[in-house]
């Protein structure tokens, strides 16, 4: 019996990019990295049989087996440290930490070993590890599963801190992170996993260097990253309805910060709002604000505004949590203020 195979229409060069979810993009990126390089393996809590706390690694165990999709005990310090040791001995580990609050149990290994050994050894040993960490609030998980601590990590020299806010970056950042000779931490905001968008395009790989202008504009710069990107784009749309043309810059990398892109945007709009799900005091928003003061002070026509999380441990109750997190409304309000139009 012959089965007629439907003929595939060849994709037109101008075809719409393939759409996928943030979760699937990360999974596909892990899969293709593992197919391409025997040295790559994934380890973390419940990444194997469970399929990952956020189902990112679902199905990978079947394809790659237990050696390479490695379930770990609840031992963040040991398995992150083991990733560091494996990286120093020829492997390319991807270590998943279920929630950023848990990463604190491994902070010793991340700071005292991963970030430090290259310099401390005078360049003898580099640590090519990738650590993926779920971050962010908005899911009513209260004060031990909801924080945005990526700004803390951005304080540490010796590591790179990536914060993918788009589906393209969620998948696309893994390959350059694995190719990097030094530790790269990738913070995936857990609210984004279900979101969809254009899939990474292998023909156009992303980098771990540059910020990206997600929406060009001329009146005010909205600088953000990760889980706040979509709130900020929504805010920009709302501002457009008021006749305010906002530029949205996705920082993408919190370390190194793309100073040139930040300064360029501020030099263009002369007004700036920084949106960060972390706390305001001593956070990445403070650092970005300082860089603007250092690099674009005379471009400013108004003081920088910041929209951050309220300085509280994130509460459980939905309305209380929502009040603590940055929202499009607060971003719009801050932009109006930067433009002297509030009230």
């Amino acid at each position, binding site marked *: 019996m012959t089965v007629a195979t439907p003929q595939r229409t060849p994709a037109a060069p101008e075809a719409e990019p393939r759409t996928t979810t943030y979760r699937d993009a990360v999974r596909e990126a892990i899969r293709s990295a593992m197919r391409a390089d025997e040295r790559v393996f994934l380890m973390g809590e419940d990444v194997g049989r469970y399929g990952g706390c956020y189902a990112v690694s679902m199905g990978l165990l079947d394809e790659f087996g237990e050696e390479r999709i490695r379930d770990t005990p609840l031992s963040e310090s040991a398995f992150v440290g083991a990733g560091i040791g494996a990286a120093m*001995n020829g492997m390319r580990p991807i270590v998943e930490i279920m929630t950023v609050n848990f990463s604190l149990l491994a902070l010793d290994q991340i700071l005292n070993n991963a970030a430090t050994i*290259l310099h401390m050894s005078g360049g003898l040993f*580099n640590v*090519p590890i990738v650590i993926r960490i779920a971050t962010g609030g908005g899911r009513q998980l209260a004060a031990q599963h909801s924080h945005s601590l990526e700004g803390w990590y951005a304080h540490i020299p010796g590591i790179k801190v990536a914060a993918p806010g788009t589906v393209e970056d969620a998948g696309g950042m893994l390959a350059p992170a694995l190719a990097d000779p030094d530790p790269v931490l990738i913070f995936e905001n857990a609210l984004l996993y279900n979101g969809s968008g254009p899939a990474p395009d292998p023909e156009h790989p992303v980098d771990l260097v540059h910020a990206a202008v997600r929406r060009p504009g001329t009146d005010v710069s909205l600088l953000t990253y990760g889980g706040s990107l979509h709130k900020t784009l929504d805010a920009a749309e709302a501002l457009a309805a008021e006749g305010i043309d906002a530029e949205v810059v996705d920082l993408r990398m919190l370390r190194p910060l793309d100073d040139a892109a930040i300064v360029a945007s501020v030099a263009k709009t002369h007004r700036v709002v920084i949106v960060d799900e972390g706390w305001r005091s001593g956070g990445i928003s403070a650092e970005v604000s300082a860089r603007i003061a250092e690099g674009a002070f005379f471009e400013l026509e108004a003081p920088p505004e910041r929209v951050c999380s309220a300085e509280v441990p994130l509460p459980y109750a939905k309305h209380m949590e929502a009040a603590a997190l940055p929202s499009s409304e607060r971003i719009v309000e801050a932009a109006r203020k930067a433009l002297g139009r509030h009230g």
Partner: protein
Amino acid sequence: MNASREPTPELTREHAHELLLDMLRVRRMEETCAELYQATKIRGFLHLYIGEEAVAVGAMRALTAEDAVVATYREHGHALIRGVPMESILAEMYGKQEGCCRGRGGSMHLFDAETRFYGGNAIVAGGLPLAVGLALADKLQGRKRVTACFFGDGATAEGEFHESMNLAALWDLPVLFLCENNLYGMGTAIERSQSETHLALRAGAYRMPAWDVDGMDVLATEATTRRAAEAVREGGGPHFVEYRTYRFRAHSMFDPELYRDRAEVAAWKERDPIELFRARTADSGYVTDEDLADLEALAAEEVERAVAFAEAGTWEDVAELERFVYSDPEGTREVAR
């Protein structure tokens, strides 16, 4: 748990001389470091290995050049016996760029790629997860190598110790856990910090074969470590050795030693590993007074050369300060060693 009743190796004259020379090299180097500290040539924290030489000297003989070593902040002796040149160790402590880490690590952070010496680590127990990972990489790549991980009794109170022991046992990794029990975590006596002071028993909780051994007897440390290392190398999973030893000097150069009796120190010094070895070999005639003088002279010459090398060393240009925060852009080296 096995009490260390391993048959000691059939001693030859050459073997005896090697053991004694290595212990003397460490002892004389460390004594010189103390003097250099007083002379302010060496700064920072300095932790001397005097009294514990038989552990590193015996244990290191069980390893091959392919194996890896992870050590602690009291690691000058381990680095030296592993094969890191004394010159580069001394230069490192001087902070000179000819040091093994260009003067960036200092006394507590000696690293050496050639001998697979993955560092002094100054976070107590911080090296154990690294050792697990080094061994994991070997297992995943099918290499028959051992990762020897030295740590002190104090480390066994850390969570990282238990996490690492569990992980290594669970994954059947080729790690040799080498616990140097010198009875004090800095100034806190073991009975004041450990619910179980017989540390080799801890390994039982992880179904890990373990020995305890007289850490002042270099023949015993060598024999026991050799047996453990061979078991690890043959795919037997992680093994554990507890060495009962004692630090003769203060914890660091800032320690007035208020926490232990002079009588206790004196009693342990009666079991000085170098003297003990001499006594044990007296009947063999392998180490005559003349031999000892020759070995002492060799050690003294090496120390002298190392000090001269460190003195002649140069300071790294401060323009290099930010180098090696990240790898050099041209891709640096391939890391598999």
